[in-house]
C-alpha cells in the first residue's frame, strides 16, 4: 500500500473515531444520568397505573442525598433513592401528580409562573405543612418554591415551599392532574433557578436527573 493511500485510510479512521467519541459524549450528556445508575425509565415514582389513569408521586429534596451530586436539589421518587428523570406514561391518559416539597420558599424569577396552567380544572390542590387542602389557581409569590413545567404540553404548576421555621421533615403537598397527548418525548423542568452559577441555572437545572427530565409517552 503506498504512502498516500495509507495516510487517507488513517485520516478517515481518525475522523470516524472523533465523530463516534463526540456522539457518545453527547449521548452521555443528554441521556445518562449524572448519578450513574440505570439511565432508563424510572418506575419507582409511578404508584398506580391503568391505561387511562396514572398516579405519580414525587418528592423535592433540598439535597438529594445520593448519586454524584448528593448535595444538589432534585426531584426524587418517594424512596429517596431514585431520581425520576424519565417517566413512562401512557398516551391520551390522565396523570395525577402528587408532589411533596421539602424545600423552602424562594421567589420565582418570573411571576407569570405563579399561574397554574395546562391542568385539569385549571387548579392544583395545595396542602401546607399542618394545614388544610386548598384549591389554588394562582399561587401567592411569597409562598413559591419551584415549578413542575412541561413546556411542550403547556403545563406549569407552581410548588409551595415550607416556611423558614418548619422542621426538616416538614413538606407541602401539591396535587394536580394533566392529560398526556399522543406518543412522544416531552421534557419537563423547573423554571425557577435555585442551583448554582449563571443566576442559578448551572448544576441541578442543567444536569439531567435533578430538576429536569423526560416524559416518555407511549
Amino acid at each position, binding site marked *: 500500500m503506498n504512502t498516500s493511500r495509507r495516510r487517507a485510510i488513517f485520516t478517515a479512521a481518525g475522523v470516524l473515531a472523533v465523530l463516534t467519541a463526540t456522539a457518545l459524549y453527547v449521548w452521555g450528556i443528554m441521556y445518562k444520568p449524572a448519578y450513574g445508575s440505570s439511565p432508563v425509565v424510572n418506575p419507582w415514582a409511578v404508584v398506580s397505573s391503568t391505561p387511562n389513569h396514572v398516579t405519580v408521586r414525587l418528592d423535592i429534596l433540598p439535597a438529594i442525598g445520593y448519586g454524584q451530586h448528593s448535595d444538589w436539589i432534585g426531584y426524587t421518587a418517594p424512596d429517596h433513592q431514585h431520581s425520576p428523570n424519565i417517566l413512562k406514561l401512557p398516551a391520551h391518559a390522565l396523570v395525577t401528580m402528587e408532589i411533596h416539597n421539602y424545600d423552602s420558599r424562594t*421567589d420565582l424569577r418570573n411571576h407569570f409562573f405563579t*399561574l397554574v396552567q395546562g391542568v385539569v380544572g385549571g387548579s392544583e390542590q395545595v396542602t401546607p405543612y399542618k394545614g388544610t387542602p386548598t384549591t389554588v389557581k394562582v399561587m401567592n409569590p411569597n409562598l413559591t418554591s419551584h415549578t413542575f*413545567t412541561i413546556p411542550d404540553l403547556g403545563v406549569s404548576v407552581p410548588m409551595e415551599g415550607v416556611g423558614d421555621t418548619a422542621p426538616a421533615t416538614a413538606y407541602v403537598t401539591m396535587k394536580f392532574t394533566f392529560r398526556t397527548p399522543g406518543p412522544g418525548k416531552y*421534557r419537563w*423542568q423547573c423554571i425557577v433557578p435555585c442551583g448554582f452559577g449563571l443566576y442559578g441555572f448551572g448544576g441541578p*437545572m*442543567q444536569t*439531567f436527573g435533578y430538576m429536569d427530565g423526560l416524559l416518555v409517552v407511549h
Partner: protein
Amino acid sequence: MRGANHWLRIAIIWFVVSVIVEFLVLKAPIPFPTMSEQAEGITQTGYMLFLVGAPIFVFVWVMLLYCIIAFRRRGPTEPPPVPRPDSNVILLLWAAISFTIVIFLAGWGTFTLHEITEPNGPHPLNIQVIGQQWYWTYRYPSYGGMETKALYLPTNTPIKFNITSLDVVHSLWIYPLDVKEDAVPGVSTTAYVDVHPHTPNFTAHINAICNELCGLYHGYMHGAVYIRPKATFAAWAQKQEAKERASGLLKNLPPYSLIYYPTANSFTPPPPQDQSP
C-alpha cells in the same frame, strides 16, 4: 490577448451563462420569508445581491476558464506571450463599474436597513418578549401588562418588540417574519415588524425559536406565534386581560418595565458591584 475575437467570445459566453444563472437564481426554490413588510424588504435585498453578484461571479469564472483553455501552452516550441501595455481605458472602466455597483448596493442596503429598524407607522403596538431558560413569554403593556406564553400578533399593524432576558443571552427568531434579535439580560433590544397579509382575514400559526446557545435545552426553546386579523386579535387581548385580572395573575406580575433585575427580592436592581482591583 492575441486577436480581438477573444473578447467577443468571452462576452458571448458570459452573457449566455449569466442569463442561465440569473434564471436559476430567480426560480430557485428557496423559502424566503415574506410574511411581513420587513421580511419582504430583506428578501428583495437578497435577490438584488444575487442578481448583481451573479454576473460578476460568472465573469470571473468565464475569464479564468477561457484563459486556461485558450491560452494554454501548446508545445515546447511555442514562444512566450508578449506582455501588453496597461490600458487606462480598461482601468478607468473597471473602477467606474465597480464603484457604481458598490454605491448602488450600499444605497439599497441602507434603505432596507432603515425600513427594518424603524416602525412602519405611528403608534406601534408594543409587545415585550422575555427570554428565560428555556421558555419565551410575552407582555402586552397596552393590555394591563398581561403576560402570555404564546405570542399573538395582529395583521396590518406596526409592532415594536422590546426584547429582554431574565438570565443569559437568548435570541428571538421568528423566521417567516424575518425577526431576529438578541435578548440580553439587563438590556432592552428592539425589533419592528408589520405582518403583511396576502389575503383578507389572514391567520397563521408559526414558531418562535431561540437562536443563541443558552444552555442544555437551547434546542427546545420554542414557542407558538399566532397571527390574527386585527379585530380578532383585539377581542383575544381584551378577553385574555380580563381572564388574567380575574385570576389574580395580573396582581402578581411586576410593574411593566423594559428590563428586570431578578434577584432574591425579584425585580429590584442588584447592588452595585465592587469594581476595585
